[in-house]
């Protein structure tokens, strides 16, 4: 503890008082840790929602997309006229452009035989539209009509069917009333709105969905020739197509649009922020209770310290010292618990839940703020301690 003494330039009174009552100290740390866990889980879920929304976008191998101006993300993408995609091919700097067809279709779940819906992506098999492991360079496998690749990390009990596909068994199921044969798997993962997914050729897509028009794909994918700036090329495409029915933007810009829509237009950010605030309130109440009762227990000692010349400021620093200790003592176990929680959630819902460093920093700052505010409230008693009380 001599380190603490060096840092503070005085005996670490706050620390000594806390460890003098180890049960209360552990309770306080547990309270802070619980709040930290709560906050991390809320932020984790919120981020999972944001991330899974753009997860598919991240897997598409394109520098620029041509989308409906009202497109929000790849699931709610609407359609664009195919000629806009073809027009883009004529723009300087465009190496390649192709149409991607996306639709939610009804299907019979191969595991249970129940009806459900599946996200079907259709693309020309020689375009190699995805970076996903198992898809890159593999699309030619679905060139035959009625064949599909199945997302092995779909949500549901698909272990058997995936094993059969990987064993080369080519099981079948019914999609939109027609037979589809699974010839392989890839790993992408479910989102909040989509449980399972499959990829087919554009020709199979049209066969499964007779009403969808080959002339109105969901979006156009554009690849830029080496040495060209995607921003510039997107600008030139927009000049060329000059339409109200389609707009070109870089993939990062499209991902931003999707995120911003969720943050600004949906209640998601509000709901999870509310959860974060609840966590902070719970933590602050716990810390306040602990610090206030610690102050209460030591009023006689504080009065004595004031009588021998301790200033209010020095006594306040004791409570802040305790707040800092509780921040650290609660944050670290809370972070560890959150990492465990993330792992459990990720396994249960087959959606990615990650712990970026900036979130760790944010929650640490929130925890510190929470403890400081609670400490400040607990302190009011210290300031009011009357040193003359030691004679009472």
């Amino acid at each position, binding site marked *: 503890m001599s380190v603490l003494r060096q840092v503070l*330039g*005085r*005996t670490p*009174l706050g620390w*000594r*008082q806390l*460890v*003098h009552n180890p049960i209360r100290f552990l309770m306080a740390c547990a309270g802070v840790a619980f709040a930290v866990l709560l906050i991390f889980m809320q932020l984790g879920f919120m981020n999972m929602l944001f991330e899974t929304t753009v997860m598919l976008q991240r897997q598409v191998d394109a520098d620029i997309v041509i989308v409906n101006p009202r497109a929000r993300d790849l699931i709610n993408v609407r359609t664009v006229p195919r000629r806009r995609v073809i027009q883009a091919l004529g723009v300087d700097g465009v190496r390649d452009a192709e149409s991607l067809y996306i639709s939610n279709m009804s299907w019979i779940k191969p595991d249970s035989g129940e009806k459900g819906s599946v996200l079907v992506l259709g693309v020309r098999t020689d375009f190699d539209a995805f970076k996903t492991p198992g898809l890159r360079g593999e699309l030619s496998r679905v060139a035959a009509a009625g064949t599909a690749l199945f997302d092995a990390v779909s949500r549901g009990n698909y272990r058997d069917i995936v094993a059969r596909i990987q064993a080369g068994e080519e099981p079948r199921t019914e999609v939109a009333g027609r037979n589809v044969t699974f010839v392989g798997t890839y790993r992408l993962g479910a989102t909040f709105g989509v449980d399972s997914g499959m990829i087919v050729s554009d020709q199979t897509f049209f066969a499964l969905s007779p009403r969808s028009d080959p002339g109105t794909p969901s979006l156009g994918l554009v690849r830029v020739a080496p040495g060209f700036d995607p921003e510039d090329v997107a600008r030139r495409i927009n000049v060329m197509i000059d339409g109200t029915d389609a707009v070109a933007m870089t993939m990062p810009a499209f991902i931003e649009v999707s995120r911003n829509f969720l943050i600004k237009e949906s209640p998601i950010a509000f709901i999870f922020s509310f959860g974060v605030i609840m966590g902070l309130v719970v933590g602050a109440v716990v810390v306040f209770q602990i610090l206030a009762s610690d102050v209460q227990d*030591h009023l*006689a*000692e504080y*009065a*004595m*310290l004031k*009588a*021998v*010349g*301790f*200033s209010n400021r*020095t*006594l306040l620093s004791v409570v802040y010292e305790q707040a800092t200790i509780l921040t650290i003592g609660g944050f670290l176990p809370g972070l560890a618990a959150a990492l465990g929680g993330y792992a459990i959630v990720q396994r249960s819902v087959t959606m990615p839940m990650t712990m970026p460093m900036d979130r760790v920093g944010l929650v640490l700052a929130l925890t510190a703020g929470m403890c400081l505010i609670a400490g400040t409230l607990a302190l009011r008693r210290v300031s009011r301690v*009357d*040193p*003359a009380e*030691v*004679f*009472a």
Partner: protein
Amino acid sequence: MTPISSSPALVAIRGLNHRYGIGATAKQVLFDIELAVAPGEVVFLMGPSGCGKTTVLTLTGALRSVQEGSIEVLGHQLLGASEKDRVTVRRKLGFVFQSHNLHPSLTALENVRMGLEGRGALPRDTDQRCRERLAAVGLSGFEDRMPDKLSGGQRQRVAIARALVSDPGLLLGDEPTAALDKRTGYDVIALIRTLAKERGMGVLMVTHDNRILDLADRIIEMEDGRIIGEMPVPPRAEPAPLPASPVLRIAS
């Protein structure tokens, strides 16, 4: 009083009045108190409870604002002193209380340190000084004991070491022997007396303890907020534990 004019008193109280409460409900608790403590002098303040002796002590200790009259402590006028001034004065004083008020989560040595901390930068030899003070109250080897592992008398001696570690010019005591048995109580006050004589430190102490009266230089009696006179100091029952040093004897 000639002693005051020739060598300035550590405490000089003149015409002190004090009231608790305000307006119609105000109750006057001190009336025209006159009191002085010279360097090295041990003064006891006695009287029935509620007679105002503790109020005199808290006012002298700069723990309350003086309302009327004059209190000079170690050269500081407390009438009209700000909270900041009073903190400054407090830091020059030593306090020993009825209950020892040791910090239960600190060792004996750290408790003594509290007498120096809280007043800015600590001298490099702080711990050494604290050890010396503990030795002076006969507690060498007890530095790392927690208060709950010390006897009542030992705790009170730690409290005295804490009061003395800052070399105060004046020690204020509030029934420091109340919680101690006869023998321990006597030894603790005898120790304070010895230190007072050695250092020229003044001692002003409220007490009800008849067993220690022979250790006083003067015993002032109070009743109903007034000083009613001085009691004769009984003959010393036991010899003073240590003779005062010659230099300080002259000063006192």
